């Protein structure tokens, strides 16, 4: 029954306990037996388990009985890292409420604020949940004050919980039922459902996770996808669950479920699209769904040049699982055929590359990440440049503009000095400094996006012992005094290594770059010169000396096969290197820029 449905997301800053809280809610509702229960069970991907982070939002359907009345709770656990805020906004678009989890021993952090604003934009009922009250350092009252002060959210009915020990979980479930509104929507109207996630399953094909707003979706129904203008037959319907999907003949108004269309074509189920009935179409599609915007771009190339088509196939499939990537074919003199792939951030890039390699058994090279520059040419045209090697010659450019963001940093005052220095070094301009309490400060800076996509986050974390938090949002383009830095290996420009840098720091960057390359490039049969140049002027040079020896001077007798196998093993190792002329570069060489100070 529609009035007994509650759709909500759990949002929070990273590590404040969203996934653990989801575990407790699942457990309390008996959706998973004690034996099957694992920690952070909604984090199902290998990468998520290994890194202990949530990358993809996950949904689960629970049943909770309150005062003898059964309620259906559709819970979405969301990621906290800045890179994945698009996942959060997608989840919130399909929810009627949100649990805002704040760590009682930490307080409000940068993503707490960012996520709350998304929830407010969607007009959702927000329940503040103060977590980790079992910790000796927990200060729930101070944290509530902080929430009221910084976000202006009423905390008089906040709920104190410990996701770890289970305190307050019942109260929270009751609050969800009482405070989060039941879905509104007309069950008699034509089908209207939002695709808020989609992915590819090797057995079932393309799957769409939907929230039904009006009408219902039935097994066997002929549906129409409004954006792509295609009709499909509903082969099966299921309720989401981290372990076993449960089949259902129908998804009713307000419900959340997975629609199986048996599609091979992965482009057909686009996130944000609206599903309706093919014969009785709804008048207007669901709007207000933000298109994802990629901030960071990098070339992705197969090491074996003949595996380009496999890479395309892999990207097509992954795109269905992660709608937030974009890709377009490109070519590089050095690397051959590949794609310029757009990501939400550097962590996202790392994750996508790792997933492509793991799930599709590819060996890939990623080039240095870059942002989208706007180049105003002397002939009046404007170019979007996402690949430094495509920057026009200097005499054809009037101006290069680069994207800026508003960066929000919240830090204990102990680290304030160092963090301000870091922001200044990264060309940041201070816009606000606000004391949240005596020992916590919020900083707002306008800063070139390029400076923060590289290693800013890691630096910030390490200089603040992990205490500073960070979020950013785009604020448009500004002119930059920028130049292209080329890298020559053995006398040849390697296009895939070019980067765009501020003119003032070009000299230093060039020197650091070749120095870092020298450490990464192994000795070869020949001496290898590594140079940095601007225009045609070489500004730095290092040399990788030639190799002295690689042989086993040994007695093999007749066992030549053994020797051959040893060589083949070495050969296997070299396969992961890229030949550029007579020089072989390891994969990491193309990401040298991330290893510089």
């Amino acid at each position, binding site marked *: 029954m529609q009035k007994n449905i509650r759709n909500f997301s759990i949002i929070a800053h990273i590590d404040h306990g969203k996934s653990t809280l989801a575990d407790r809610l699942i457990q309390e509702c008996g959706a998973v037996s004690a034996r099957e229960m694992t920690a952070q069970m909604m984090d199902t991907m290998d990468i998520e388990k290994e890194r202990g982070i949530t990358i993809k939002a996950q949904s689960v359907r629970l049943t909770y009985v309150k005062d003898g009345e059964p309620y259906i709770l559709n819970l979405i656990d969301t990621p906290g890292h800045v890179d994945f805020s698009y996942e959060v906004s997608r989840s919130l678009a399909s929810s009627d409420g949100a649990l805002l989890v704040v760590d009682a021993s930490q307080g409000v952090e940068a993503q707490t604020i960012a996520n709350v604003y998304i929830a407010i934009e969607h007009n959702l009922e927000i329940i503040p949940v103060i977590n980790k009250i079992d910790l000796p350092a927990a200060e729930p009252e101070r944290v509530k004050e902080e929430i009221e002060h910084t976000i202006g959210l009423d905390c008089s009915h906040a709920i104190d919980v410990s996701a770890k020990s289970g305190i307050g979980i019942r109260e929270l479930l009751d609050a969800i039922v009482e405070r989060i509104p039941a879905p509104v929507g007309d069950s008699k109207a034509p089908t209207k459902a939002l695709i808020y996630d989609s992915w590819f399953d090797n057995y079932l094909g393309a799957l769409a996770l939907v929230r039904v707003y009006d009408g219902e979706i039935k097994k066997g129904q002929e549906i129409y996808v409004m954006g792509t203008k295609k009709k499909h037959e509903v082969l099966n319907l299921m309720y989401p669950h981290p372990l076993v999907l449960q089949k259902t003949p129908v998804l009713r108004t307000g419900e959340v479920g997975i629609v199986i269309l048996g599609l091979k074509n992965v482009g057909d189920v686009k996130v944000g699209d609206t599903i309706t009935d093919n014969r009785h179409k709804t008048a207007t599609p669901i709007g207000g769904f933000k298109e994802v915007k990629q901030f960071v771009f990098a070339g992705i190339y197969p090491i074996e040049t003949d595996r380009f088509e496999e890479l395309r196939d892999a990207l097509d499939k992954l795109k269905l699982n992660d709608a937030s990537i974009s890709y377009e074919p490109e070519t590089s003199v050095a690397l051959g055929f590949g794609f310029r792939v757009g990501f939400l951030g550097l962590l996202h890039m790392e994750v996508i590359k790792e997933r492509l390699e793991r799930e599709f058994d590819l060996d890939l090279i990623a080039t240095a990440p870059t942002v989208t520059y706007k180049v105003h040419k002397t002939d009046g045209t404007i170019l979007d440049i996402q690949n430094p090697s495509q920057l026009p010659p200097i005499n054809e450019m009037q101006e290069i503009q680069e994207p800026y963001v508003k960066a929000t940093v919240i830090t204990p005052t102990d680290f304030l000095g160092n963090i301000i220095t870091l922001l200044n070094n990264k060309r940041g301009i201070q816009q606000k400094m606000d004391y949240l309490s005596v020992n916590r400060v919020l900083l707002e800076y306008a800063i070139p996006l390029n400076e923060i996509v590289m290693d800013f986050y890691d630096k910030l974390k390490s200089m603040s012992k992990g205490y500073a938090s960070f979020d950013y949002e785009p604020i448009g383009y500004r002119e930059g005094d920028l130049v292209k830095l080329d890298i020559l290996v053995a006398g040849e420009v390697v296009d895939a290594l070019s980067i765009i840098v501020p003119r003032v720091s070009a000299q230093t960057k060039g020197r650091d770059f070749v120095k870092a390359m020298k450490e990464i490039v192994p000795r*070869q*049969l*020949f001496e290898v010169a590594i140079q940095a140049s601007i225009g045609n002027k070489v500004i730095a040079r290092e040399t990788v000396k030639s*190799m*002295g*020896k*690689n*042989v*086993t*001077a*040994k*007695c*093999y*007798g*007749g*066992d*030549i*096969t053994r*020797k*051959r196998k040893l*060589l*083949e093993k*070495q*050969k296997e190792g*070299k*396969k992961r290197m890229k*030949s550029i002329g*007579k020089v*072989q570069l390891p994969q990491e060489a193309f990401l040298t820029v991330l290893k510089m100070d």
Partner: protein
Amino acid sequence: MLLYIHIPFCETKCHYCAFNSYVDKFDIAEHYFRAMEKQLEFELKRFNVQKNSISSVFIGGGTPSSVDAKLYKNIFRQIEPFLVEDAEITTEANPNSTTKQWIEKMMELGVNRISFGVQSFNNDKLLFLGRTHDAIKAQDVISFAHQVGIKNISLDLLYGLVLDTPSLLEKDLDIAFSLPINHLSAYALTIEKNTPFAKRKKIVNSTLELAQIVVDGVQKRGFYQYEISNFGTYKSRHNLGYWQYKNYIGIGSGAVGFLDNKRFYPSKNPNKYIENPLQIKTEQLTLQDQHIEKIFLGLRSEVGIKKEMLTQEEQQKVALLIDEKKLTCKDKTLFNNNYFLSDEIVLFITN
């Protein structure tokens, strides 16, 4: 045609060695030789060996000098008709177990070349390696061999240990060259799986510096280098045969045989071998396998590689290497200018 005979017995096991040999199986030695005779008979037929065609016999191990010379008698009788007139007949021998009588008897059977496993003339190093002889013993044994009339004497040296120093290695070479040898093999220590050294740390020093001292030192003292580890006033036919990709018969437990595109592996377990010496595993070599083998064998020795056997792509890489003076081309054959880079060059050409 070459013939290799494997003796899988040793008095003790050296700390670095992974060759197929056992310290506790001397009691089956006689049965073992009977089994080898059986296999030999079979292989002579399989390889279709003709009269006057075996140019080299090599008895290796393990430790050939750890068993009575008379055990070899039947084998020599079997191969007699197939040997070429001036066949090179080598046996390996360990200094600790080799006696004058043993040498004499082996000579009577036809042995005309002995390769002594000396490793070093430094007693500390010998102890570290787990050898049971000392420097004096090694020198004495080599003198015996010379007195008895063995014309071609070789010795093995082992280098590349952490305790090696330039002066230690120079001294080893000085002593080696004071002896009546006309051939020397110098091997760089390799850590092999399942050996005592594999469990320890800080054993190897594989720097170019040490290797260069040995290789330069041997040549300076008058021997010619015809393979990465082999030097002499002449070239051992047996060794050269391997690098020339010649066929060879391999007799015994842990031996390997090679015929055209197949390799043969009798059981490595001597007891199993005795049970059935004809239970031999065959490895089929692909064209690709043979291609790369010819390349790496040719590049680690003065044999070189015939340019025409290389693919178009490989020849392009070779052209680069000739430009860079890594290879020399003479009479359509490519020669390696620096054996120390052999593996790297193979990888470069075939990648």
